């Protein structure tokens, strides 16, 4: 299997705060990796470093084997802007708050980037968009404005928008955290479909059920470090560190109380 993403000794500092402290992470083609951990542990920062929404302080990142950033002198040096954009375009990102473009219909949201960046014809882009809307179960919403959709529907359109760029790696940053508990299921179902199709996914989530059921590997982060990782069984049934044991106890009891 080929590594889609290789991160080596990633350090990210916000002023004096070290949000990532020498994190190394490999993601193989077709893998679904879940990242769990307490608030402020650096999960989002790690995800956002992959597509340079955050510029790392030092470390090395390769996407599909190609170097995006390295630190020969100890400080991060990115390859050219063009190259970085090309590498990042093989990743797609789904945000907690969707970030659909409010001035475009669902169809417009999905077709805009393929037409502008991939120079697809409108007919071609729309055909793909309709197919993707079908995949996420919103075939009838093509001409609706995002403001006319529920949160769960908006998030599914956002997933379709990301998929339209044919990414090889999808990054999800708490895709269901902004949703009412009753409708998280519809988004998780779409993600399960993607996992079943062997889409490579890196998912930051508070949904322990999803991590346990769908992920091939679960990573537990705290204080900007990867504390423990393994199969869902290893992480949930047999946690090694006290941090993880405590974390699981508190989140699982919190989720039961909901």
């Amino acid at each position, binding site marked *: 299997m080929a590594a889609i993403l290789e991160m080596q000794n990633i350090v990210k500092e916000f002023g004096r705060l070290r949000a990532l402290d020498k994190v190394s992470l490999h993601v193989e083609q077709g893998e679904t990796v879940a990242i769990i951990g307490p608030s402020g542990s650096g999960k989002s920062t790690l995800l956002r470093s992959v597509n340079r929404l955050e510029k790392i302080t030092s470390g090395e990142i390769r996407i599909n084997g190609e170097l995006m950033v390295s630190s020969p002198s100890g400080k991060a040096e990115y390859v050219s802007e063009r190259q970085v954009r090309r590498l990042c375009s093989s990743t797609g990102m789904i945000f907690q708050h969707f970030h659909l473009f409010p001035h475009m219909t669902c169809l417009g949201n999905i077709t*805009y980037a393929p037409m*502008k960046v991939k120079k697809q014809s409108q007919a071609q882009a729309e055909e793909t968009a309709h197919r993707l809307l079908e995949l996420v179960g919103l075939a009838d919403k093509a001409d609706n404005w995002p403001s006319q959709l529920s949160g769960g529907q908006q998030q599914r359109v956002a997933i379709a928008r990301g998929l339209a760029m044919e990414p090889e790696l999808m990054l999800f940053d708490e895709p269901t955290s902004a949703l009412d508990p009753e409708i998280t299921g519809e988004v998780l179902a779409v993600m399960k479909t993607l996992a079943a199709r062997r889409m490579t996914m890196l998912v930051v989530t508070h949904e322990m059920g999803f991590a346990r059921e769908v992920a091939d590997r679960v990573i537990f982060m705290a204080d900007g470090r990867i504390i423990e990782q393994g199969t869902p069984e290893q992480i949930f049934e047999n946690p090694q560190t006290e941090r993880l044991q405590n974390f699981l106890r508190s989140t699982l009891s919190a989720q039961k109380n909901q």
Partner: protein
Amino acid sequence: MTVQVFLLTLVFALPLGLPVALGSNSRLLPIRLFCRAFVWVFRGTPLLLQLFFFFYMLPIWFGFAMDPLPTAVITFVLNYSAYLAEIYRGGINSIDRGQYEAASCLGLSRWQTMFGIILPQTVSRILPAVANEMITLVKDTSLVYVIGVAELMKASRGAVNRDTDPTAYLVAALIYLLFTFILTKVADRVEKRFSRHEARRQ
């Protein structure tokens, strides 16, 4: 003549405000400084003073005089570009960071993001402020009177002198009011047109 000043200012200042606004946000320091200084000067001094400056001082200092109309138009365009630039910039800055991040994740360039994603959303937000500015402009055009190019005010004053009938001033005021009223209506229409996507969920 005031109508000419109004229309020409509209035609030139509306677009000119945009590069100034983008420049004020530029990552390149010289561009940013230049645009911010421009805004500072033209927004920070009274329009009347600027008119005096361009009309009376420039010829004295630099030895060339322009016709009143182009002088008035240039002054108004510069002044209004500065005001509009600040409105545009405020609008651009009010767009959620997430929009930039989503665009960047889809591989859109800065240019595509600005013109395809950010500015279209800015339009509906800044329209009320821009309409306001246009109404102020209608009233400000009466200032061109002081450099002797106003027709509306001059005509009405002529009428007052002739007939010693103050209703002429009233007529002038009514014309201004009518003008601003029409503008408000037009602005409303345009605003509705650009906020279609904000329609509430059915």
